[in-house]
């Protein structure tokens, strides 16, 4: 009943919002953690004090975009216990992961990434301990600590900063044959220009790094299909509450982003939907129209690949739209 009512309400809604797949201003598009998950050998019947554990460092990198404005950006990453809004709360233990400044992401001579390192020392262990203590499942299987990311154009007021968050997972090596998650990978992205059925591999790299990117006319439809390596989708074990284990198979999902134009679907992949439809992996990019393109426009494309276990990878490409 309530779903039906919600449907009716949705039909009555009259808002027109920006397309989330089209990046028109400063945004964090993705953040990777390497490794995304660490498994710690422990005896579940006699769990150790978290502050005595040894953790490996984690490299975190954010993909940041700001089309249209050429300016440097300041960034900072701080790790802390998880919160509902993805930001570190006053009074919680924190660890500085990194900070600094990057050049304009689109025009800088080399690709720009905001990267920091979460060390495995005592401050991180304190965050982990606090997280376990406040975990409603008392640390069962794993806990996530969050890395809060703040980005703002250099020289603008702090209230113009944008925020992001990325979780880093620490689990118990239970059962012993369990392996930690790896970030997903991709063989290539096939591009079918005009949806003719003939595909070519999409050249990866920023617009600034491609002398002759894929060139299409305004309004051209380009079907984009991610091609995964055979090992991209991992099998993994999870402990059950009743003391057993369950074997699961990873899903990979794709988020499609661009600097202009539109996509037929903003995300693809993932699990089956509620009625059993197998998810489509592809999405079709529709190049911007002539009035947007003008004399010609290089449109950045981004694809963010995710599994359901915090694994993440991103790919960047470019389409030149010329009348």
């Amino acid at each position, binding site marked *: 009943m309530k779903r039906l009512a919600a449907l009716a309400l949705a039909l009555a809604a009259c808002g027109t919002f920006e397309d989330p797949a089209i990046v028109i201003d400063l945004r964090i598009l993705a953040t*990777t953690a390497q490794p995304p998950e660490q498994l710690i050998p422990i005896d579940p019947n006699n769990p150790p004090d978290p502050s005595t554990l040894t953790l490996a460092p984690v490299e975190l990198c954010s993909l940041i975009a700001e089309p249209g404005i050429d300016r440097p950006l300041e960034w900072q990453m701080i790790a802390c216990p998880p919160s509902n809004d993805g930001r570190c709360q006053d009074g919680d233990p924190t660890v500085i992961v990194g900070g600094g400044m990057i050049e304009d992401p689109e025009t800088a001579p080399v690709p720009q990434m905001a990267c920091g390192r979460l060390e495995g020392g005592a401050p991180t262990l304190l965050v982990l301990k606090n997280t376990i203590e406040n975990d409603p499942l008392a640390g*069962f299987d794993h806990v996530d600590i969050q890395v809060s990311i703040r980005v703002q154009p250099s020289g603008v007021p702090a209230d113009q900063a944008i925020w992001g968050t990325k979780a880093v997972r620490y689990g118990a090596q239970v059962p012993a044959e369990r392996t930690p998650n790896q970030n997903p990978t991709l063989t290539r992205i096939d591009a079918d220009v005009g949806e003719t059925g003939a595909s070519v591999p999409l050249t990866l790299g920023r617009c600034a790094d491609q002398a002759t990117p894929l060139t299409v006319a305004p309004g051209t439809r380009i079907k984009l299909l991610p091609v995964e390596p055979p090992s991209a989708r991992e099998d993994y074990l999870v*402990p059950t509450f009743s003391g057993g284990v369950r074997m699961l198979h990873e899903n990979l999902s794709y988020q499609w982003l661009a600097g202009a134009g539109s996509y037929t679907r903003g995300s693809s992949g993932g699990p089956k939907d509620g009625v059993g*439809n197998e998810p489509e992996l592809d999405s079709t990019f529709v190049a911007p129209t002539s009035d947007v393109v003008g004399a010609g426009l290089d449109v950045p494309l981004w694809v963010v690949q995710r599994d359901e276990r915090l694994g993440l990878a991103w790919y960047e490409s470019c389409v030149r739209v010329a009348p």
Partner: protein
Amino acid sequence: MVGTAHADDGARRDTPPQPAKAPVMTKAPVLVQAVAPEYPKAALAAGKTADVAVKIHVDADGVVTAVDVVTPVGDGFDEAAQAAAMQYVFDPAEYDGVPGPIVVETTIHFVLDKVVETVPVEPPQPAPDDAPGHVGDARLPVTIRGQIRELSTRRHLGGVIVSIAELGMDVITDDDGNFAFHGVLPGTYKLLVVAERYERVEKPIVLAKDDALDLVVRLRPLNGNPYETVVEGEREVLEVTRRKLTRDQLTSVPGTFGDPIRAIQALPGIARSPFGLGVIIVRGSNPDDTGIFIDGHRVPGIFHFLGGPSIINPEFLDSIELYPGGFPARFGRQHGGVVAIETRASKSDGVHGSLAIDILNAAGYVRAPITKRVSVAVAGRRSYLDGVLALLLPKPKAGAQRVVVPVYYDGQARVDVDLGKEGKLSVLGLISSDALKVVNSNPDEQASLKLNAAIDFFRVIGKYTRPLAGDLTLTLSPAFGRDSVAFSGSQAQAAGPYSQLAVTQNTLSYRMRVAGRLGKHTYLDSGIDYESRVTNYDVLAAIGDDFRNSFGADLPTEQLNRGVSQTALGLHGDVAIDLGKLRLVPGLRVDGYVLSGQTRASIDPRLVAKLALSSMWTGKAYAGVFHQPPQPEAFDQRFGNPAIGIERGLHGGIGAEWQPDRMWHMDVEAYVVRRQNLVAFTNDVVVNEDGTATPVNFRNSGDGWTYGFEGMIRRELSERAYGWLTYTFSRSKRRLNNEMGYALNAFDQTHIINAVASYKLGRGWELGARFRLATGLPETQPSGATFDADSGGYLGVDPGFRTARAPYFTQTDVRAEKSWLFDTWSMGVYLDIQNVFARDNVEAIEYDYRFRKSAPVTSVPFLPTLGIRGQW
């Protein structure tokens, strides 16, 4: 001896005050409704008679506002005359063509007729002169007889005064509307027929020598509305606040499409239900906290889906009672409020029925006598939203398929058996169904879907009532019913469902009630309330409840069957004790529960007090304990918590009622509700010593406060107008556990104003309007957002949970109806326009993907409904 009394017709009227250039009375007042006074018992026993001269103050609406006794005569005659005259209704006097007040002077006569033993006379056989409906010398034959019926409905009207003015003979029709005059001599007379709420009839009659007249007189309801009122006897008052609506009063409330049950949403203490939900929110509580009872037995809901009409045909309704708090002990297992619906007996003097059609649905109703003691009524309704949508939706492309079928229907049947001295027996059957079917497939796309959703229930309710010793009445009422909620989803081309949920609940209940007066100052209402519910869940779904973080994992679907049972046995008793001007009603309810094998118990003491402060003012107060078992899923062994306990509510309130005359009523009340042990969902698990974990799922960790004030000024239904104005101030807060702060309830609305007015213009026209104002629903309004790299979405940053509100809601509905009365049937056509000013009311606020921009989600701006209904 029998006592009769009547007022002089054509009494002297006072002239109005004569100021300078005084207006000229262009029309004298006309008495259109006279009520016979009650003969004082002591005076009747003593054989006393009296003539009481009274001055009757009549206002510009023809309503009597005061009655003065000119010369008191004592022996209770003065009070009886005043009480009767207060119920007179006049067609008001007019001055220069404008209605105005006047004082009318008349005399009410109390006379005694001697009882004469009947002497059989052949032929015809006269009835005893004290037989109902007979008047005159019983030894003489009946020379004028007849029957009074209501125009269009043919309903036989008892209690109607029939008189032959020239002879001074009055008679009151019997229950079947019959009257008979004995020994009237041949001649020309004027027959006068007067009945409350009907137009007066003056009919010339000519009685020839050796002749007898047999008449049928049809009375036209005042202002021609065939859906008028049935006068109801008041029952004993055991509660502080009970707001009662009757079917006949409220088929014309604007914005309700003629559905009386919808009218309760305009009563004080009822918060506005968001568009399309159709729930009843009593004093800010959750909808589940309010029980809905039909003939004393619980039903799962009262409205069809998407805020559709109620599940009972209006013709089947006898009364709707809303208890916003402090309700009697016979209602239990709820700590919010109670809506009690009583269905109407099918007893009928002939075949009667109705048919109603509007743009959403069609409904029919028939009742008929089967034998002298057995009668039956049936009703049904079906929507044709499916047909309307088929016309409105664009056709799918070639090869594609799209089906959207929302449909609802309901039906009711009732059989009544009059067992005479052995009591009355009835069986009621109810069925309600709401279904939605969606099929969407397109050969150009690989994804397709087929959804089926249905909500159904039925009830069979038996009821046997018989008198016990003294004034006590015994009622035995068993009932059985089944509720089902079903959902399935699949690909359009799939043979079977991919996901499925079917919940069925079988309920067996039994109520025994003994109620009645124990003595002059004591009234008892007690009984047994048994209810057994077995709930079964059949689920086909991807279930990942046995490990952490199943979100996003590709889990295979699995079939799951679960069942929970709840058995409750309650004993309840209220005793009303009259101590002079004070009525105290102590009550106690004790319930024992078995929830899936776990026993629970609750004890609910309650106390109500009402004090008559003056002839117009009554003070009232109450306090009590109310318990409510959790929903079935909360004590399921796997998905719930078998150790879950009973929720508790403590109600308290104080208020006053003011009734200056029979037309006006004011009711104010301040209340507080403390809720404890509320069932709250939790993600917590208990980690066992062996390293395994047990999810807790639910805890009795929640609590809340509700407090407020509500008031109502109501003008009762009269020949021309009715209406009410209500104001509610309410604040309702809850929290999931004591580590959290209190947050506003989802439906909390601080200020709620409802105004309803309806006026009958005459010639069958009636116009009405309803105005509603309510504080906007609580909102959690993000002040920022954080990009979540692991989902690709954004998390809202909010300054506090439900600390903002949607804008105020206001809506004005209007309704116009025209009725036509014919000899044996009637017809009405109405236009009901919801939100006549097309105001964009905000039901919710939606945000863009990063919570920077917002847009209101508005309800339907303007909804006209044209309907037609016939009744015979």
